[in-house]
């Protein structure tokens, strides 16, 4: 007896015995009352009692009869049914375990992905009235570009124009500062957010300690102030509240700490990696020229809408303003449109399509799991059809049987759901580690909303899988098994047809999943195979930024860089080394608009966009960028003699079609400087997933450049060089922080992480679906063969060839798979279009992917069919006929 049954019986007994004693008390009261009346009528005590008992009749019989009127309460009936369900499930442990596992897989995936979607996409940001917060960017209609950084000149015009309907703050969440404290601790490079003084007020966030910026502090002449993020305060300052008012050194200048933000505070937007550790006032930090130009775009704007004002009306007003700005300043670098989003969209729009795709895939798995369990139920019903028929004949109602079925599927779904929640929490903790790059990833956990979702999914799953099999037992056919003669039964037809339909649906969903997985995987492989324009094997990069205070003259900077290169090239194991502002694959790195004074005025003479790079003469050889024409910088082309540049092949083709760029000139509009082109070099990519962009290179030992990336190439095992090289830099300047030490392979891995994640996850789901489908095909065919043993035996006895039988059964099994395949391929087409934005380098209708999916599916289906079909063809006719 199971613990459950024991509990149930104990409960019932307890209730019963209480009722029993109450009945006894009630009857005793009656007797005593009767006796008391008799006594009052003049009988003596003994007589009175006897007369009372006599008039009462048979006490035992009365008790029995009364008891028989007691019915089972609904709770007791429910518990009894649950007990029956558990018993019935435990009688077929194979079925139960299989069904629970299948449901757990389906539910676990769904719960995990829903938790992610809820925390990342849906949960409001933790700011005051977050629905009123917006982020503004600019666009360039000419180039169909949107979400471009904005210029400060436009920002001040915007702020005036929407005064009263929205407050705007200027944000540059991309600064980097070298942090050192007086205590001789290790210097380090930290990300900073430069913001206008009203930024925190606008978000509605109070600092945990101290205060936020005042308007006076947000100006060029004010004393330097800084606000720390909680993590830095704990890490570098041991969470000491006394830091308020003390000083830290940023880029070798002293800053007064005025506040510490609360630990939950995080500002995550498109332009920020969510790694900001300090905040500084923007006007204090930026050059005055940058604060007033319309041509240099370094910022975004945060806005809070006034009550009753819609975002659309603000966007419209700003579009008009931007049009006026463009009309007043028609230069090519001035932007012509405004783009706005809610702050939440800004933070998570990049994850929406991937997450919804994965959610769709996990939903498919759940559906397949339900179909599978439903199909198992149908098979189980078939096996129990005699029992069900007998019970119907004995008077069990149809509702009663349905209730039992649903109860069983609920029990299975609840079991699967509990296991699924475990799977989901394991999946979530894995995901939080695997996707450190994702905004808001730390907020992912199973909260009450997710729990409600999980419960709803369990209910849906139970209803779906229970009702499928309930549908297979029409009341008319319920009694059929009793009438069936031992031969030639055909009552299973309906059930078999239903199972075939379920199977086809399941195969169809599997095909859709396989196609999506195939497309994503192929995209990912394409992305990984893409070369940056240089070989990425055994290349190590690291970055540093020379602080202007210590290196205030251009010659000092150049001298440091030359010393560094000389030293690094002498380190044993280093094959070559070079310096560049931004290495291939490591980001946009800034762009300039240029004109070509040698060209007649026109679209090919001005407003030409180039990525900006500065490099040392040996960089091209070190990185492996071929010099296609001309030459690299000469050693004397440095400091004041640096009016020469190299351009990329793409720039040469695009801006100098059919002419020789060598000897031509470029005018850097922003700096007002004219330079001569001395060479053309091979193309490199600024990030792996984006096409080449025209690029120019100027000498790094010039223009007072202070930030650089050291690129080191070795024959093998380049990682081992990172320590000796950092030691060398430390020997040159012990306060200089070195950051982002990584190999080029790691860079590529980081930028393809999202693609890898999506493709592997969907592939995982597709494989699960394929296994379930294979199991389904096998199950249906095996069931079919068992059902037709008799018929097949007769056929073989009458002379049917083994090969014929094999073909017959094989086709029987493959038919639903083929139907499903066709439906699935048809369904994949629109789905593939939906995930187009996740694909790289392939079209949604990639014939290789579709063909491979067809082949894989047919192969798996054939394999799943082979075993039952072979068994059918090996049937011994004598045994088959005797089996009944």
């Amino acid at each position, binding site marked *: 007896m199971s613990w459950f049954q024991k509990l149930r019986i104990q409960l019932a007994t307890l209730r019963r015995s209480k009722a029993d004693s109450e009945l006894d008390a009630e009857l005793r*009261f*009656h007797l005593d009352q009767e006796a008391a009346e008799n006594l009052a009528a003049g009988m003596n005590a003994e007589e009175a009692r006897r007369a009372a008992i006599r008039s009462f009749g048979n006490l035992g019989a009365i008790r029995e009869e009364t008891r028989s009127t007691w019915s089972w309460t609904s709770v007791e009936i429910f518990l009894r049914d649950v007990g029956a369900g558990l018993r019935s499930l435990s009688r077929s442990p194979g079925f139960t375990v299989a069904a629970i596992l299948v449901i757990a897989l389906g539910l676990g995936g769904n719960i995990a992905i829903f938790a992610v979607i809820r925390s990342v996409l849906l949960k409001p940001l933790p700011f005051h009235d977050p629905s009123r917060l917006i982020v503004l960017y600019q666009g360039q209609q000419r180039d169909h570009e949107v979400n471009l950084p904005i210029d400060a000149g436009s920002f001040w015009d915007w702020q005036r124009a929407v005064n009263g309907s929205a407050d705007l703050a200027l944000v540059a969440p991309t600064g980097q500062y070298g942090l050192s404290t007086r205590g001789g601790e290790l210097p380090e490079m930290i990300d900073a957010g430069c913001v206008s003084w009203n930024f925190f007020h606008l978000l509605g966030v109070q600092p945990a300690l101290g205060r936020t910026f005042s308007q006076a502090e947000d100006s060029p002449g004010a004393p330097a102030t800084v606000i720390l993020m909680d993590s830095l305060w704990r890490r570098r300052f041991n969470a000491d509240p006394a830091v308020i008012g003390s000083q830290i050194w940023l880029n070798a200048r002293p800053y007064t700490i005025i506040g510490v933000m609360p630990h939950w505070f995080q500002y995550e937007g498109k332009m920020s990696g969510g790694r900001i550790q300090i905040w500084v006032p923007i006007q204090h930090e930026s050059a005055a020229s940058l604060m007033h130009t319309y041509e240099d775009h370094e910022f975004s704007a945060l806005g809070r809408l006034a009550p009753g004002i819609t975002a659309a009306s603000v966007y419209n007003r700003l579009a008009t303003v931007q049009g006026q700005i463009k009309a007043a300043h028609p230069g090519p670098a001035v932007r012509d449109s405004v783009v706005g989003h809610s702050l939440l969209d800004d933070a998570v729009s990049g994850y929406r399509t991937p997450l919804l795709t994965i959610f769709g895939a996990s939903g498919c798995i759940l559906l397949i799991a339900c179909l599978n369990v439903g199909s198992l139920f149908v098979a189980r019903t078939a096996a129990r059809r005699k029992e069900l028929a007998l019970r119907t004949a004995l008077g069990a109602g149809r509702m009663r049987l349905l209730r039992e079925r649903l109860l069983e599927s609920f029990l299975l779904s609840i079991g699967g759901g509990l296991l699924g929640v475990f799977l989901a929490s394991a999946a979530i903790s894995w995901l939080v580690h695997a996707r450190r790059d994702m905004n808001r990833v730390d907020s992912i956990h199973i909260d009450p909303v997710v729990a409600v979702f999980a419960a709803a999914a369990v209910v849906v799953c139970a209803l779906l899988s229970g009702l499928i099999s309930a549908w297979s037992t029409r009341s008319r056919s319920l009694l059929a098994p009793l009438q069936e003669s031992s031969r030639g039964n055909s009552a299973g037809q309906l059930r078999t047809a239903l199972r075939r339909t379920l199977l086809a649906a399941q195969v169809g969903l599997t095909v859709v999943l396989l196609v999506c997985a195939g497309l994503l995987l192929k995209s990912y492989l394409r992305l990984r195979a893409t070369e940056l324009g240089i070989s990425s094997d055994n290349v190590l990069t690291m970055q540093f930024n020379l602080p202007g205070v210590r290196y205030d003259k251009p010659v000092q900077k150049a001298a440091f860089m030359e010393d560094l290169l000389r030293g690094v090239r002498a380190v044993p194991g280093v094959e070559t080394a070079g310096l560049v502002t931004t290495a291939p694959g490591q980001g946009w790195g800034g762009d300039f608009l240029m004109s070509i004074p040698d060209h007649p005025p026109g679209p090919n003479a001005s407003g030409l966009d180039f990525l900006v790079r500065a490099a040392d003469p040996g960089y091209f050889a070190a990185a492996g960028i071929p010099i296609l024409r001309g030459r690299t910088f000469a050693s004397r082309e440095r400091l004041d003699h640096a009016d020469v540049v190299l351009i990329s092949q793409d720039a040469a083709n695009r801006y100098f079609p059919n002419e020789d760029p060598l000897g031509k000139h470029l005018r850097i509009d922003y700096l007002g400087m004219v330079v001569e082109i001395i060479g053309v070099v091979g193309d490199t990519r600024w990030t792996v997933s984006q096409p080449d962009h025209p690029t120019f290179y100027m000498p790094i030992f010039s223009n007072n450049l202070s930030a650089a990336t050291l690129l080191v190439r070795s024959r093998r095992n380049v990682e081992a060089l990172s320590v000796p090289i950092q030691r060398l830099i430390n020997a040159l300047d012990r306060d200089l922080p070195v950051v982002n030490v990584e190999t080029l392979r790691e860079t590529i891995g980081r930028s393809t992480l999202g693609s890898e994640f999506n493709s592997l996850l969907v592939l995982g789901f597709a494989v699960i679906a394929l296994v379930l489908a294979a199991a389904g095909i096998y199950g249906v065919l095996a069931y079919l063969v068992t059902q037709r043993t008799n018929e097949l035996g007769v056929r073989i006895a009458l002379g049917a060839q083994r090969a014929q039988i094999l073909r017959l059964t094989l086709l029987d099994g493959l038919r639903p798979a083929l139907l499903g395949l066709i439906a699935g391929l048809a369904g994949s087409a629109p789905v593939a279009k939906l995930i187009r934005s996740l694909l790289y380098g392939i079209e949604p209708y990639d014939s290789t992917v579709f063909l491979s999916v067809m082949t894989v599916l047919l192969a798996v289906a054939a394999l799943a069919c082979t075993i039952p079909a072979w068994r059918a063809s090996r049937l011994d006719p004598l045994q088959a006929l005797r089996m009944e």
Partner: protein
Amino acid sequence: MGKPNDLVQGTLDLLILRTLANQPKHGWAIAKRIQQISKEVLQVQQGSLYPALHRLEQQGWITAKWAESETGRQAKFYRLTSHGRKQLERETANWKRLSGAINLVVSEA
């Protein structure tokens, strides 16, 4: 005559419900009340009374509560529920129809 068993089936239910219409009573009081009102014509057998009470309770027409009786002992008091009140109206109407019809037949034929 006078045994409730001889009455039309269901009549005992009607009698119990009617007896409880004014105030809650325990089993003994119900039996006595029926006896008294019917001028000793109807003798309620305990053998039928208690099963009937428990059946009515299961059907939700009456509910029971243990309370102190007039002699100071704990007794199980039955009370009419709103369902029971409606059932009483239905059964009373039924009874009137039926007894009227029987009356007609007996006196005319």
